[in-house]
């Protein structure tokens, strides 16, 4: 009896001891900073001898009146709304191609997946060259078709879209492998049955393939959505948020406010918004993934 109680107590102590290094590190680099960030957003930024004071919601009021914040926020929403579905649709198309009995599918899979392995900064520099306004390949092609040069990254109308193209290029191949795995799970007799019924290609896709890869689509969509709100590398490497903040995104604006303008309290308020966005995606994940995926 005595022995049993000691082992039980032992498990609680041992469990916590084993988790202790992870707990300390996670607390100091995730949980405590998150809480401190939220608290800091209610204070002013200390400047020189002026200490920070409690100012309630003033930072948030300033934020609502800050056109660059709205620019970053709306840009980020647009970024997510465009890149996530496009990357997913392309990824599914790639997976269907590579999964079929197509000639040279190994080479195709390689072409689709390779951009994923490149560091974003390297990809960004390659695309910078691709986008160069007078002699970049893209403008060479456009000119060959008789159109005028476009200053892809220098024009506020195209800068954000040019960044989106890089993101889609990098991500689609990564998502492809998840769809590929899902497609290989589809029981072949379903397709066999469809062939017996003489069903067309589109019907087969709509009635068999699409429902069966739905859980994968949700999983990929949630992860892509989270990534879309943490994008910053290509903004730093390609446009610096410009021209005239046309391509700024939330995390980039936080980085700028924190490390170029040194306005730490405002950066904290902006980070709180980002935390809220990520939190809502997490809740969506909890409800969507947990409820809908279990028929797998």
């Amino acid at each position, binding site marked *: 009896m005595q022995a049993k109680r000691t082992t039980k107590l032992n498990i609680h102590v041992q469990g916590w001891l084993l988790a202790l290094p992870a707990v300390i590190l996670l607390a100091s680099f995730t949980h405590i900073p998150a809480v401190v960030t939220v608290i800091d957003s209610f204070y002013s930024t200390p400047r020189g001898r002026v200490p920070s004071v409690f100012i309630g919601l003033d930072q948030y009021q300033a934020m609502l009146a800050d056109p660059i914040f709205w620019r970053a926020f709306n840009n980020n929403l647009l970024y997510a709304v465009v890149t996530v579905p496009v990357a997913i649709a392309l990824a599914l198309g790639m997976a269907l191609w590579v999964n079929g009995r197509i000639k040279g599918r190994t080479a195709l899979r390689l072409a689709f997946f390779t951009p994923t392995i490149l560091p974003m900064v390297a990809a960004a520099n390659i695309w910078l060259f691709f986008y160069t306004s007078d002699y970049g390949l893209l403008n060479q092609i456009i000119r060959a078709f008789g159109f005028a040069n476009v200053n892809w990254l220098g024009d506020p109308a195209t800068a954000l879209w040019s960044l989106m193209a890089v993101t889609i290029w990098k991500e689609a191949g990564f998502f492809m492998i998840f769809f590929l795995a899902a497609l290989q799970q589809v029981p072949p007799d379903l397709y066999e049955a469809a062939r017996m019924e003489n069903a067309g290609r589109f019907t087969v896709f709509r009635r068999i393939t699409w429902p069966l890869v739905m859980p994968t689509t949700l999983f990929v969509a949630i992860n892509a959505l989270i990534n879309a709100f943490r994008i910053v590398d290509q903004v730093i490497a390609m446009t610096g948020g410009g021209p005239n903040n046309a391509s700024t995104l939330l995390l980039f604006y936080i*980085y700028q406010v924190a490390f170029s303008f040194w306005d730490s309290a405002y950066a904290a308020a902006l980070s709180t918004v980002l935390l809220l966005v990520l939190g809502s995606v997490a809740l969506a994940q909890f409800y969507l993934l947990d409820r809908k995926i279990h028929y797998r």
Partner: protein
Amino acid sequence: MRMPNRAREIFVTGAAWAFGLLWALPLFYALWAAFHPSAYATHFELSAPLTLQNFIHAWHAAPFPRYFANTIMLVLGIMAAQFVVCTLAAFGLARWKFFGSDILFALILVQLMVTPDVLVLENYRSLQKLGLIDTLTGVGLPYVASAFGIFLLRQTFKSIPKELDDAARMEGASTLQTIWRVYLPLAKPIYVAYGLVSVSYHWNNFLWPLIVTNSVETRPLTVGLQVFASVDQGIDWSVICAAALMTSGPLMIAFLIFQRAFIQSFLRAGIR
């Protein structure tokens, strides 16, 4: 109206190939520029001479050997530390229901969403207090306790039959000995998968090292490449392309050789 099967097959194959070429175009373009003299960077002639000069130039124009060393130390250091810290936590969470373990696990999962670079400013301040600014330890430390690693290993450990565990304990093995002798060997493929994912993530990571490092001695490749491309190098695209390809080189070559293992790992690991 239906196309005959043969014609449709050719059409689908053609479309797939055209799309594949389009996808590879930026990379081919970069390869072209990097392996030819600058004069040919933007016009294409089959007779253009091949050269390695751009790579040699980039290698000498910036401290790339040092950047390579930094990145390699960084990714291996992070991976080793992650293996230790995540294994211990994952084992406890997989095998025992200790006081508060459910809440603990839920709190750990928060980090899947809130990665250390989301809280850049606060984490930068913590590093300042620890005196770890501009050190490789500082770049790696926030990533050591990886929620993803703990989650992945916990799932794996849960699938290992408890009888094996009990058998080892009957022979008098301690907890750590049991992990070492029973769990590590059985979870080997998962460690390989996690290792590949971790290495490629940190090889490519950019924002956090950009903020934490400010000297050649600590800068990893990604930050070094950015500094090189934006400051040192005007607009010699051939050299920039060579540098960009060079920084991704080892990872790309490893990927080409171990393609299957890489893809399997990303699948097993699910999220990066």
